[in-house]
């Protein structure tokens, strides 16, 4: 696929999502707003996992850093949404930078466990400071505190546009990044880190950059999720929320720009449908993880790229 057609395809998705807002029934309208914010989280995860080849099991730490950075500023700092969002995003950048400095000293399985352990410590820290965070129960951000530049983000239409904007920013950053020399170097590191180092690239700096960008986008999604849906709770910092982006990206296709959205869309509706049938809806996630690693490690968009659209970023 050539450059302009790739651009057309990706911008087409954004235009389509923008237009869908006018035709969707209320229930799916609300769902899609959620999916777009979560897909932005998956886009962030994909930059580290899909493009750099570093499998993190601790991204919930970044998502929660954004969410709590934003929510605590509003709840206890008395801030308005705009600076609160910035604080959330900055919190994500700082936390991911610090974790990267430690975790990037390890590779492979050790990297996965280190990220898992630090994310777990972060989750427990939120529970420990229950006086401010309200622990597992979480707290609601009131409607009056969610007015950004005069726009009430608790209104479905405004919320949909805000979610669309958040997703578009993450999506376009990801599309731009992977076509830049920096992104190409990340892909090279994924394929063969030794060789990239031999060619004279500073692989540590590249991986550090990838992890901070990935963590910052995840934090942005977390902050937006808390603001748009008016709730911050410790469950968003739990292991489950580290597994979800992995699952979405694996399903959609790791290392593809479209994959995170496709994966989030399918998995969201799969879990939504199955939770109507049984309380054990995470069973679907487990089965999907096993089947994907066994039979389709490339994911949906990855398979599509292999068979139809070669050269899809």
């Amino acid at each position: 696929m050539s450059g302009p057609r790739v651009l057309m395809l990706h911008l087409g998705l954004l235009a389509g999502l923008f237009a869908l807002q006018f035709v969707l029934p209320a229930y799916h309208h609300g769902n899609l707003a959620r999916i777009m914010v979560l897909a932005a989280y998956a886009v962030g995860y994909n930059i580290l996992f899909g493009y750099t080849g570093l499998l993190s099991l601790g991204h919930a730490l970044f998502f929660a850093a954004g969410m709590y950075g934003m929510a605590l500023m509003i709840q206890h700092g008395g801030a308005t949404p705009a600076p609160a969002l910035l604080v959330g995003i900055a919190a994500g950048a700082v936390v991911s930078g610090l974790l990267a400095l430690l975790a990037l000293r390890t590779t492979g399985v050790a990297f996965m466990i280190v990220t898992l352990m630090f994310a777990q410590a972060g989750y427990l820290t939120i529970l420990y400071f229950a006086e401010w965070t309200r622990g597992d129960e979480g707290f609601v951000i009131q409607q009056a505190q969610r007015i950004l530049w005069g726009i009430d983000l608790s209104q479905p239409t405004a919320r949909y546009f805000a979610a669309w904007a958040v997703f578009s920013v993450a999506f376009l950053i990801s599309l731009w990044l992977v076509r830049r020399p920096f992104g190409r170097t990340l892909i090279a590191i994924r394929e063969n880190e030794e060789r990239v180092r031999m060619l004279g690239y500073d692989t540590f700096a590249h991986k550090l950059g990838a992890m901070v960008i990935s963590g910052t986008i995840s934090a942005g999604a977390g902050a937006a999720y808390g603001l748009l849906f008016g709730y911050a709770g410790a469950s968003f910092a739990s292991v489950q929320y580290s597994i979800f982006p992995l699952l979405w990206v694996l399903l959609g296709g790791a290392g593809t720009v479209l994959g995170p959205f496709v994966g989030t869309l399918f998995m969201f509706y799969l879990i939504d449908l199955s939770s109507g049938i049984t309380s054990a809806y995470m069973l679907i996630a487990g089965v999907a993880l096993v089947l994907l690693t066994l039979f389709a490690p490339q994911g949906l968009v990855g398979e599509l790229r292999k068979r139809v659209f070669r050269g899809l970023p």
Partner: protein
Amino acid sequence: MDLGPYILLATLEGAVTAAVLALTAVGLSLVFGVMRVVNIAHGEFFMLGAVIAWYVANGLSGHPATGFFAALIIAPLLVGVLAMAVDMTILKRLNYDPERTIVATIGLLYILQQGALMTYGPEARPVEAPFNTRIALPWLELGENGLSFYYPWGLSTTSYKLAVIAAAALVLLGVWGMMTRTKLGLVMRATQADRDMALAFGIPVERVYAMVFGIGAGLAALAAVLIVPIQQAHYMMGADPLLLSFIVVIIGGLGSLPGTVVAAIIIGLSDGIISVFFSPTLAKILATLLVGLVLVFRPQGLFGTRAP
């Protein structure tokens, strides 16, 4: 109670934790050592052991001891066979690639946990201990007439708890004997040292792997059967043993069995004593941070000398 008897009590409770933890962690360590597989679903094998123990104990009528001892044999066997099936159908097909097996065992974790929720349900249910005599413990006191024994109120343990410690020690001795004295152990160690060379010498590596995965899961199930008369069987009970086993295995040195046992005893004993002084959440935060930092700065473990 004074501080002295209190610490003795905490140590005794800690010894039970340590015994069960050592069994669970040795299972995890064995799998990692021989197969280089990080089994995230290990805690769910533990949970399955407890749940199966409840089914067996409830299915059999008669004296509670009958059901318990039947469970002691049936639960580890069933879980072991299930784990072998998982190894042959899933892990083998992934060629034991470290990262993909982690993702697959995360999937397995949810399948087993949610499967238990669908069949066994969300309730926590107890299994009756085969024997449970209360034993009061004496304490020394320096009185006016020199040293004398007395029985402080609340300082007691049960015969069952002591039996758990003894049983765990026996099983660990058995595992040690198996690894160092039998042909199976020799084959396992050979596979651990060099998989390809073992294969070249005609060792059926795939069968060894299935066996090791089965034994590892069986040990977790056995630990769960031992603890289930003290705790209760619940579908979410796998999370804590998994986290603690990870801590133990990493601090003891990945894949080193003696290091694992030493770490289990230290962590198990200190767990009770630490939670006297700190809140449990703070203790967990410190423990998880410790694991992360050990992996970053001392990947061979605090006690291990062998590189992972």
